[in-house]
C-alpha cells in the first residue's frame, strides 16, 4: 500500500482503483484512531502528572516538611520549658501539644498517601515512635510536678534521644521521599519522549492524508476531496494544540520548579538544618554527663545553611524571586548574628559554665539565641510560603493548559475518521 501511495503515477499499482481506495480508507481510519488513542494517552499522562504534582505530591511534601518542623519544635519547646522552670507556663505546653497534634495529622496524611518500602519503613518508625516519645515527656512532666526535677530531666533526655535518634531521622527520610515524588511527577509532566512520538505519528498521518488527496486528484479529476481536507485540517489543529499546550505547560512547570518548588525545597532543607542547630544547642545544655559536644556539628551545619554562594540559603536566594527572594535575603542576614550568639553558648558549655549556658540557650530576650532562632525560622518559612505560591500558580497554569488536550485530540481523531469515510464514500460510489 505504501508503494501504491508513494508512486501512483508510475504505474506501480498492483490492484484496481476501488480496491486501492478501500485500502486507503481503512488505513486512514486506523491512523486517525491511532492518533486519537496515542495522542489522547500522552495528553492524559502529562495532565495527570501535572495534576498530581500540584494537588498530591507537593502538598504531601509540605506535610512532610511540616511534620519534621513540628517534631523538632515540640522537642525544643518542651525541653526548654522545663529547663526554664519545673512548672512551665501554659504557653509552651500548649505549643508542644499543638506541635504533636500537627505532626500526628501530617503522619496520618502521609500514611494515607503511602509510598515505597523506604517511605513505609520510615513512616512506621514515626507511627510507633511518636507515642513512645510523648509517653516519656508525660513521665517527665509527672516527675517535675511531683518535685523531682532531676528525674524529670532524665526522662526529658530519654525523650530527646527518641526524637533525635528515631523520629527526626525518619521524618527526614519521609521528607526526602516526598521531594523525590514531586520531582518524579514534575518530570513525568514535562517529559519529551512520548510527546515526540505522538507528534511523529501526527506527521506520518498527515503525510499519508496529503498523498492520498493527490492520488485521488489524479484518479478522479477532482481537485479537492472535502472529507480528507477536513481530516487534514483537524489533524493539524489537534497536533498544534497538543504541542502548544504541552510546551506552555512545560514552560509553566519549569518556571514553577525553578523558582518555586526548587528553592522551597532548598529552604525546607535549610529549615531542617537550622532546627538541628537549635536542637543540638538544647541537647548540649541537658547533656550533663559525659563530654559530648555538638560544637563541631554546629560549625559544619552553619556553613551548610549559609549565607554563602554555595550554601542552602545562597542557592535559594539565587533561585527565588519577589517576596520569596526578599525573605531569603533577610534570613541570610539573620543567620550570621544568630550563629554568633549560638557559638557563645558552646564556649560557656565547654567551660562547664552550665548555668550561663542554659540561660544563653533558653533566654528569650532580644538578641538571645532563642529569639534569633525564631526570627530566622520565621524568615525561612516566609520564603517557603512565597516559593510555594510561585510553584502552585505556575503548576496550576500548566495543568490548565494540559487539561483540554485529551478531549481535543479524541474528538479531532473521531472527526478525522468520519471525514475520511465521507471523502472516500462518494468516490467509491462512482465505481458501482
Amino acid at each position: 500500500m505504501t508503494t501504491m501511495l508513494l508512486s501512483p503515477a508510475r504505474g506501480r499499482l498492483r490492484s484496481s482503483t476501488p480496491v486501492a481506495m478501500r485500502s486507503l480508507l481503512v488505513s486512514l481510519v486506523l491512523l486517525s484512531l491511532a492518533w486519537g488513542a496515542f495522542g489522547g494517552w500522552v495528553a492524559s499522562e502529562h495532565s495527570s502528572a501535572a495534576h498530581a504534582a500540584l494537588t498530591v505530591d507537593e502538598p504531601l511534601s509540605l506535610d512532610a516538611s511540616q511534620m519534621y518542623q513540628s517534631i523538632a519544635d515540640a522537642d525544643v519547646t518542651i525541653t526548654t520549658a522545663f529547663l526554664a522552670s519545673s512548672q512551665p507556663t501554659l504557653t509552651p505546653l500548649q505549643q508542644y501539644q499543638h506541635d504533636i497534634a500537627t505532626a500526628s495529622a501530617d503522619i496520618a496524611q502521609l500514611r494515607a498517601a503511602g509510598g515505597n518500602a523506604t517511605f513505609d519503613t520510615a513512616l512506621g518508625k514515626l507511627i510507633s515512635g511518636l507515642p513512645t516519645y510523648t509517653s516519656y515527656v508525660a513521665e517527665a512532666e509527672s516527675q517535675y510536678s511531683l518535685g523531682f526535677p532531676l528525674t524529670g530531666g532524665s526522662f526529658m533526655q530519654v525523650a530527646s534521644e527518641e526524637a533525635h535518634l528515631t523520629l527526626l531521622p525518619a521524618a527526614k527520610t519521609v521528607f526526602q521521599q516526598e521531594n523525590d515524588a514531586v520531582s518524579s511527577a514534575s518530570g513525568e509532566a514535562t517529559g519529551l519522549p512520548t510527546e515526540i512520538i505522538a507528534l511523529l505519528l501526527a506527521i506520518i498521518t498527515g503525510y499519508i492524508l496529503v498523498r492520498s488527496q493527490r492520488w485521488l486528484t489524479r484518479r478522479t479529476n477532482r481537485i479537492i476531496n472535502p472529507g480528507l481536507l477536513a481530516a487534514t485540517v483537524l489533524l493539524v489543529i489537534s497536533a498544534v494544540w497538543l504541542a502548544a499546550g504541552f510546551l506552555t505547560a512545560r514552560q509553566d512547570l519549569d518556571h514553577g520548579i525553578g523558582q518555586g518548588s526548587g528553592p522551597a525545597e532548598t529552604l525546607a532543607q535549610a529549615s531542617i538544618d537550622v532546627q538541628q542547630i537549635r536542637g543540638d544547642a538544647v541537647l548540649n545544655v541537658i547533656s550533663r554527663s559525659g563530654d559530648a559536644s555538638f560544637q563541631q556539628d554546629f560549625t559544619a551545619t552553619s556553613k551548610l545553611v549559609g549565607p554563602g554562594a554555595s550554601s542552602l540559603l545562597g542557592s535559594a536566594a539565587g533561585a527565588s524571586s519577589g517576596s520569596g527572594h526578599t525573605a531569603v535575603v533577610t534570613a541570610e542576614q539573620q543567620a550570621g548574628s544568630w550563629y554568633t550568639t549560638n557559638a557563645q553558648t558552646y564556649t560557656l558549655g565547654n567551660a562547664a559554665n552550665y548555668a550561663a549556658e542554659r540561660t544563653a540557650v533558653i533566654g528569650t530576650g532580644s538578641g538571645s539565641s532563642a529569639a534569633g532562632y525564631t526570627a530566622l525560622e520565621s524568615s525561612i518559612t516566609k520564603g517557603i510560603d512565597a516559593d510555594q505560591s510561585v510553584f502552585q500558580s505556575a503548576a496550576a497554569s500548566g495543568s490548565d493548559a494540559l487539561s483540554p488536550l485529551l478531549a481535543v485530540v479524541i474528538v479531532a481523531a473521531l472527526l478525522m475518521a468520519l471525514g475520511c469515510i465521507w471523502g472516500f464514500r462518494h468516490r467509491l460510489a462512482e465505481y458501482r
Partner: protein
Amino acid sequence: MVAGRRHRVWLTRGWPTRAWQTGTALRIGLAALIGLAAAGGTAAAVLTSGNAAAATATTATASGAEPAGTISETGSSLLYPLIHAWGTAYQAQHPGETVNTKSTSSGVGISDASAGTADIGASDAYLSSGDLVKNPTLLNIPLAVSAQTIIYNVPGLSAGTHLKLNGPVLAGIFNGSITMWNNPAITSLNPGANLQAIRIVPVHRSDSSGDTFLFTSYLAMTDPTWNNAIGYGTTAAWPKVPGMAAQKGNAAVVSYCGTTAGCIGYAGISYLSQAQREGLGEAMLANGADRYTLPTASAIEASISTFASITPPNETISMIDGPSAAGYPLVNYEYAVVSTRQPDARRASDIRAFLSWAITKGNAPSYLNAVGFAALPPSVATLSAEQIAEIGS
C-alpha cells in the same frame, strides 16, 4: 500514580506496630535465655585485674566453648573495687578468658567505650542524650546500685559521730560562703557536736567524674542558688574557694582528706572502708523528706524502690533525692557503657556473658556487701538483660 500510592498504604497499614512488637518479643526472649544461661552457670567467665594496670582472667562462653579473647574495661573508680572482686571470682569459676580492667574515671569510661578503645566503659552517670545521639550504638546498662558518701576530717569530734549535712550547707561549703566548721549553719544541724573553729577545706574531683555528676546533682536538686549558678555535670565550674583542692580519683580524694585537717569531700561508697581506715567521718545526708540517713543497704534499697518501676528501657534515670522517707538521697545505678556493635561475634558473646554474670551471680551479697553496693531490683535486672541481649557484632 496517586491511586497506586494510596493503594500501597492500605496494604501496609499497621505493620510497623506488629514488627516492633515482634522485635521486642524476640529481644525479651533472648534476654531471658541469656539470663537463664548465666544463672545456670553456663555463661562466660571473665577475669578482672586487681589494680590500675591490668590483670587477666578466663571465662567460658555462654555456648560452653572455651573462649580465647580478651575483654577490656576502664572507667569509674567507684565501680572498680566491685569489678575487681567480680573478676577475681569469675576467674576462679571460669578459667579461660582474659579481661583487663582499669580504674580511671567515668568520663574516661564513656569516652573510651565511645571510641571503641575499651570493650566496657564503667560509669557512675548514665550516658547523656548528647553522648547517645553522637554514639547511637552505645548502651548504658546498670550492673548494681551504688551511693555517694560525704567524708570529712574534723578534729575534735567524738568517735562514731556522724555529722548531719544537707544540700544547702554543702552548697555553701563548696561555693565558699561557709568556711569554718563552727559556722552556725552547721552547728544548728548538729547540736552537741564538738565543732571547733577549723577552716573547711573542700576537695573535689579534678577529672571528668560520675561522682562529681552525682554530688553536684544533689546540690542542684536541693539548693536553687547552686542550680542557677553552677548546675551539675561530670565536671563543674567550681567557685574559687580559698584552700579548695582537686584530686584525681576516689582514692586520691580519700587520701587527701585523711591527711588534711578540716577537709570535706565526696567519694563513692566503695571507698568508705578506706575512709574509715583513714579515720574520716561519714555524714548523714538530708533526704527529700528532710530526714538524715546514712548509706546503709536498707536506706539505699528504700531509695531505689520508688524508681525501679519507672526506669525506662534504656535505663537512663536520675534517682537523686527521691521521695522515700527512709532512703538515702545520693544513690545511682552503676553503668556499663557498651557498644551494640562489637568487632566480632566472639567478642560480643564474651561481653554478653560477662555482663549477664555480673547482674545475676555478681549481684550476690557476698560481692556487694564488701563495697556497700545494693543489688539491682528484679525489674531493672530484666531491663539490663534485655539491653545486654542487644550487644552484637
